[in-house]
């Protein structure tokens, strides 16, 4: 690599081409934007898959897609939405806003951050590449053994899944280490833990979940990969392997994972409500402790996904009760949000609409969750459309509503333009209507006995009308994202220029220009209270602070761009792909793996010795 970091450090930044700039960037804001853009595209792909699913299920005995393709569709839909849409969209907010909210110039390990991004993008592309080979994963998003074994899934379909998830897991773990460290160690002076913005708390707790649950799925995937590629029998029956082990390991990861998907959403809503109610968050410390408690309990309830396996009454009772307990801290959150609104002066801007929609819809999903927690009743609901209704209410009604709220709220800070309010509200109403029309009927069709993951159903069981409603709803829901996309394009072309602080925000990111300059804070902020910006305004006796000037970054050192994160990511992907394409040769690793491994190792070595002294930006 001729372009060493040192050259960057001293050559003028302007010379770099835009492409190289983005490929080598270690700026958390650029990385955040790339996370967001790629995740939104993956979200649309996942949504498109859902639309095909819904079209197939529109009427009984439909023949739009083959059974196998249907299985690929829902597997990829679930996998995409969870790992390639909701998690990385959350990661976009982590990246862009955690440093801003805590008053830092960047994350603790900018190059590691870039590596997380590239591994994520490569992993996502790799997973979706399988469609081109007509061999997309088809074993469901939880890939139960032995259906996922070589014997019952001989093609490369499940190899893509195993390796894809393995890759994504590494990205998440690296980001987990990074953000945990950043939050603990990079806070502005005076920002004690209990003065941190609540979103930052949510991220911190989420990272604890990532760090402690992803290793479990990593090991499980390693076993599955060994089973599929090297002839072991961890989950194969032929040598007494036990498929229950897979289920346990998957859900030991899987349940914390769903809180990984929802806690950032809790955090975003907890930031938005106070700003638009013009009133601080009600019960800040209870909010913090309830999140910690949810996370903690989240590790002790995994077997509620396995009530139908017949674990025996003692285990069923334990997991049933433990699961119900989670309703208590979650209830505390809901009530504290209402307490935040109570007595406020609600400013009905688009972000508030979505945040309120989130609360209303999440309650519904949470309550159906509690119904699932009743183990005997769950024997009727598990693997029926009732579950599908439950988890879309928490995942879409919860996570997506909240992430959308976050997008409208923080868009001006990220891009310096305000999204159109009228279109935003239209987006909200269409989404709310479409969402409920899609998923509310699923509760009933589930109770009426429709199993999930079936590619068609016979007429005469009473499923027809409800499914048709869901399908209509799904298209309505999809069109709400067309409105959103149009809003983005329109704003891009001719949106209103955003001031630094369009919403009368409470947190530090609103004190700097929109969009922020590369170094975020020209002057390191010092924090003396929660909601520091409100404190500042109150002290100054103004409603809006004077627009902060864009300043020259003379003398500010930033970390240098680097190629190594991208190179290491490519090497890592190559290594794993090599394992996949190895066809049962005697030698465990093929030449592709070895090349990949060598690239990774070399990359890490060069990375470790690359000077990190920054360059002085000139813009």
């Amino acid at each position, binding site marked *: 690599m001729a372009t060493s970091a040192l050259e960057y450090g001293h050559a003028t930044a302007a010379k770099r081409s835009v492409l190289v700039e983005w490929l080598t960037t270690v700026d958390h804001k650029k990385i955040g934007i790339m996370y967001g853009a790629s995740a939104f595209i993956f979200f649309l792909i996942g949504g498109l898959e859902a639309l095909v699913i819904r079209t197939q299920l529109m009427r009984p005995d439909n023949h739009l897609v083959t059974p196998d393709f249907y299985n690929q569709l829902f597997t990829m839909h679930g996998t995409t939405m969870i790992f390639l849409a909701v998690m990385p969209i959350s990661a976009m907010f982590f990246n862009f806003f955690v440093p801003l909210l805590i008053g830092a110039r960047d994350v603790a390990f900018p190059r590691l951050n870039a590596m997380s991004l590239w591994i994520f993008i490569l992993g996502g592309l790799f997973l979706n590449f399988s469609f081109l080979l007509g061999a997309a994963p088809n074993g469901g998003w939880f890939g139960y053994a032995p259906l996922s074994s070589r014997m019952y899934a001989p093609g490369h379909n499940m190899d893509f899944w195993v390796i894809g998830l393995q890759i994504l897991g590494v990205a998440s773990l690296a980001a987990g280490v990074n953000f945990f460290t950043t939050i603990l160690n990079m806070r502005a002076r005076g920002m004690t833990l209990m003065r941190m913005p609540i979103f930052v708390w949510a991220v911190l707790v989420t990272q604890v979940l990532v760090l*402690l649950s992803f290793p*479990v799925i990593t090991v499980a995937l390693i076993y599955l990969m060994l089973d599929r590629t090297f002839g072991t029998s961890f989950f194969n029956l032929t040598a007494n392997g036990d498929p*229950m*082990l897979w289920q346990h390991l998957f859900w030991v990861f899987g349940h914390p994972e769903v809180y990984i998907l929802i806690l950032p959403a809790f955090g975003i809503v907890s930031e938005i409500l106070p700003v638009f109610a013009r009133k601080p968050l009600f019960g800040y410390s209870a909010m913090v402790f309830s999140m910690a408690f949810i996370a903690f309990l989240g590790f002790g309830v995994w077997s509620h996904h396995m009530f139908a396996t017949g*674990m*025996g009454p*003692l*285990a069923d009772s334990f997991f049933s009760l433990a699961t119900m307990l989670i309703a208590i801290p979650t209830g505390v959150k809901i009530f504290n949000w209402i307490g935040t609104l109570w007595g406020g002066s609600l400013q009905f801007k688009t972000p508030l609409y979505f945040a309120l929609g989130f609360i209303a819809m999440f309650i519904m999903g949470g309550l159906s969750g509690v119904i699932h927690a009743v183990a005997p009743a769950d024997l009727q609901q598990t693997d029926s459309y009732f579950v599908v209704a439950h988890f879309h209410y928490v995942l879409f009604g919860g996570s997506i509503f909240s992430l959308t709220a976050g997008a409208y709220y923080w868009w001006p800070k990220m891009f310096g333009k305000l999204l159109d309010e009228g279109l935003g509200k239209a987006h909200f109403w269409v989404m709310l209507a479409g969402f409920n029309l899609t998923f509310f009927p699923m509760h009933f069709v589930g109770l009426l006995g429709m199993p999930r993951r079936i590619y068609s159903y016979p007429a005469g069981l009473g499923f027809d009308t409800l499914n048709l409603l869901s399908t209509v709803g799904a298209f309505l829901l999809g069109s709400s994202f067309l409105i959103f996309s149009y809003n983005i394009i329109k704003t891009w072309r001719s949106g209103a220029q955003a001031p630094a602080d369009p919403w009368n925000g409470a947190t530090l990111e609103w004190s700097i220009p929109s969009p922020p300059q590369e170094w975020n804070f020209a002057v390191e902020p010092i924090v003396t209270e929660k909601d520091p910006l409100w404190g500042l305004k109150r002290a100054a006796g103004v409603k809006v602070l004077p627009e902060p000037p864009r300043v020259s970054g003379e003398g500010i050192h930033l970390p240098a761009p680097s190629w190594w994160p991208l190179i290491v990511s490519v090497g890592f992907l190559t290594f794993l792909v090599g394992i996949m394409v190895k066809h049962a040769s005697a030698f465990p690793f093929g030449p592709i793996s070895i090349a990949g491994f060598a690239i990774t190792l070399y990359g890490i070595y060069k990375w470790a010795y690359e000077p990190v002294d920054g360059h002085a930006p000139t813009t």
Partner: protein
Amino acid sequence: MSDHHAEGVGAHTASAEYIRIAVVLFALTAMEVLLYEACFGHLKASMPGLSTSLSPWFVQLLLVLSAFKFWLVAMFYMHLKFDLKVLQWLFGFSLVLATIVIMALFTLFTYNRTLWWWGGVPW
């Protein structure tokens, strides 16, 4: 702000203490091996009385001994004892969780295999 940082390891613990701990660690490992030999290995024959009284406690004793070793390394060699409390919490919490998960999985599996609904009728 560098005054915040933990002082170097040497400030708290001298080489002598490291050596003392090393000795204890070896003694503990030796005890583990001796325990095994006494209960099940070569020494069993020469001291049958001790063997029968110890072997029911074999697993428990082993776990206690290794936990102690673990504690020594973590606290002194990894310097947890003198470092930030956050680090103790971080490691402690993960360890507790890891232990609970191991125990829970182990219980779920042994329990399943012994109760009637897994009885297994030959097909």
